[in-house]
């Protein structure tokens, strides 16, 4: 029996869009301090899964417990309190085009921690920008940044609330291999520096290998297999092997 403390527990999660069943009695545990990777092909429902966890999508049935609270049952205010502890790195970065980097970083801070003074806000902005290696971009607009820089700023915006869990939605998609490697390194550094639990959704095997302590394979809407990278790679199951060939 696993004695580690789970921060996310998912049981029997089902989600369908019309007749298209995306998640079919899906189960998952994310433990404190763990880097868990959910691997699946495009369109397999990985993004739907983490959007259900953060409350952006409502599941059809099943339980999603985050810090012991069932997300689908929460009221808006309660969900906000959970969201303050759970960071979300969007696949498209989702930086606000009309705001500078500073304003992008200040936005969640001002919303969740309304009584934070300007001096403390400035310090936090500077600190997270240094964490992602981009302190000089503070007054730039997102359109002036490269793809990798935008990803770093998006991660900085996630980190500014010091979340206990970070959900990464395809963090290396659309990046060149070198920048992708830098982002993978950054994810590992962030986990060590901030001691977060991470749930990474991806189909990038390099990311799986380097960042994943445990891997769950999402196939046909179910948790089809789980284990370490090496266990998965040496699996004899044809559906699992198909990812590594």
């Amino acid at each position: 029996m696993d004695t580690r403390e789970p921060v996310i527990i998912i049981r029997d999660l089902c989600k369908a869009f019309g007749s298209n069943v995306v998640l079919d009695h899906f189960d998952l545990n994310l433990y404190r301090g763990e880097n868990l990777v959910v691997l699946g092909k495009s369109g397999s429902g990985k993004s739907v899964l983490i959007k259900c966890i953060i409350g952006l999508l409502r599941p059809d049935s099943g339980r999603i417990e985050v810090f012991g609270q069932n997300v689908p049952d929460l009221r808006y205010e309660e969900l906000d309190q959970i969201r303050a502890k759970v960071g979300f790195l969007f696949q498209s970065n989702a930086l606000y085009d009309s705001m500078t980097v500073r304003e992008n970083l200040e936005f969640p801070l001002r919303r969740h921690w309304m009584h934070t003074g300007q001096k403390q806000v400035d310090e936090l902005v500077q600190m997270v920008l240094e964490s992602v290696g981009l302190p000089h971009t503070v007054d730039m607009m997102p359109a002036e940044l490269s793809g990798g820089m935008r990803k770093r700023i998006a991660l900085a915006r996630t980190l500014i609330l010091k979340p206990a869990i970070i959900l990464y939605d395809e963090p290396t998609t659309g990046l060149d291999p070198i920048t992708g490697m830098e982002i993978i390194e950054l994810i590992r550094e962030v986990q060590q520096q901030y001691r977060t639990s991470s749930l990474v959704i991806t189909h990038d095997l390099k990311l799986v290998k380097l960042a994943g302590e445990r891997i769950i394979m999402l196939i046909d809407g179910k948790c089809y297999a789980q284990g370490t990278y090496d266990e998965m790679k040496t699996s004899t199951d044809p559906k699992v092997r198909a990812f590594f060939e």
Partner: protein
Amino acid sequence: MSDYSINKALLDEIGDLARFTARFFREVFRPRYEFSEFAHQCFVIGYKSLALVGLTAFILGLVLTMQLRPSMVRYGVEAQIPAMVSIAIVREIGPVITALIFAGKIGSSIGAELGSMRVTEQIDAMEVSGTNPFKYLVVTRTLAATLMLPVLVVLSDAISLYGSWIGVNIYDVLSLKLFWTQVIENLAYYDAIPALIKCFFFGFAVGIVGCYKGYYSKKGTEGVGRSANSAVVMASVFIFILDLLAVQITELVWYY
């Protein structure tokens, strides 16, 4: 596409828009109030539309006067031009033309802005950042459009009438003071108040339709373009429908 499918799609759209509007009225009175974003939107929607509205209003007043003059001269009533132009502008042409220009500029920009925010997950990001995106984006923009259009119409009416005065002076000589005296003497509350009231409804229609189209924009850049375009078309149709209703209601209320 069969007639049945077209009718069903139309009814679905009307139903969705009605639900979206009902949600606006639920959210508008509920805290937290986004005052600073509302003020910013008033600046963007109102102040930044002023130049376009002012220019078109000036040309409208000038052209209307020049087009009207030959007929008025033929019947020997050219002295009535200020009265006729002022009634036409204040009661109908000013509100409707300004609202249509407003729909073109603001409806499309709201539709495109919210559409691109939807497609690039910025609306989702706002939600996980502890912000109700409906309140922050939809309520503020719709309220700003509702309040700013009447202000723009009052200004555009005044600018149109200055354009008209210049139009009169191209052929005749009429002092500005006399022109305005004739305008004021011939305008009644019956002309101005219903026209001003209907502007709030026009502004609301432009704001809510632009937000609805953008907020539910489908994925992809094509969807953003379609949202902007259909926001203008739908808002323009609503403006004419509301205008038709307004004239009927005004007749009923004022005469009975």
